[in-house]
């Protein structure tokens, strides 16, 4: 897994490539949850280069949702490949995460959302 974080005033933004599995997920979990402590309202995950995700990786998204939802925020998943998107669909996670075609669409939504803080 390769992880890159992009600075944004209202969101924690990560670009994730490669495999998100039991080996690599602890690093993602640590960095994502730390970034959410800054008080941002949204988590944006660019998965356009993600090749594999298992329940450990999905768990990080759910934990983020549990933190952001009470703040009126959201977890945005961008550019996910078709075969991975199926997993979000069949498990129902596409109903709690905002699925976007790419990061530009997610950023547009953030820009269009009034900041309640």
């Amino acid at each position, binding site marked *: 897994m390769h992880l890159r974080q992009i600075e944004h005033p209202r969101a924690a933004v990560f670009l994730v490539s490669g495999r998100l*599995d*039991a*080996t690599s997920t602890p690093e993602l979990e640590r960095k994502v949850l730390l970034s959410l402590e800054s008080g941002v309202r949204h988590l944006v995950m660019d998965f356009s280069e993600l090749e*594999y995700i*298992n*329940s*450990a990786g*999905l*768990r990080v998204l*759910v*934990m983020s*949702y*549990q933190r952001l*939802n009470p703040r009126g925020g959201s977890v945005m998943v961008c550019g996910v*490949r*078709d*075969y*991975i998107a*199926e*997993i979000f*669909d*069949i*498990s*129902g*996670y596409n*109903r*709690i995460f905002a699925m976007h075609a790419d990061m530009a669409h997610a950023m547009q939504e953030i820009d269009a959302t009034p900041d309640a803080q």
Partner: protein
Amino acid sequence: MIAKFDFALNRPEEDQAELLAAVEEFADALGLPPSVRYRLGLVIDELVSNCIAHGARPGEDRGIRVGISDSGDDMTVEIVDSGPPFDPTAHASRKCLQPGDVKVGGMGLCLVRNLATRMEYSRFDGFNRTRITIAKSIQENACTSGR
């Protein structure tokens, strides 16, 4: 001809990454489409992770054996482990999300339950045997919880 795969994890935590790489190679050799290849790897990953997380006794070495057979229309995965009795079919719900209830537990087995067209469990001679069938022609089996 039925293609077969067999892999023994003598030290499951250390061998899991090698297993998943071998499954990828097997899927590549069969020319499976990305969707089936991903489902195959994910089902095995989740079930083996479950064996490791919930079955090990402290200080005890335990083996896990993973077999795959390609019967044409379906892929069949068989996982045999020597851990305490555990029937994943009794714990795996198709509903990963309940309305108003977002939990982090049980996600792996829920994914497996939704990806499998058939899931069977038996206990014999001190071993758990879980057999999963994955259809090659993918039909959407969307979770309808909360809808």
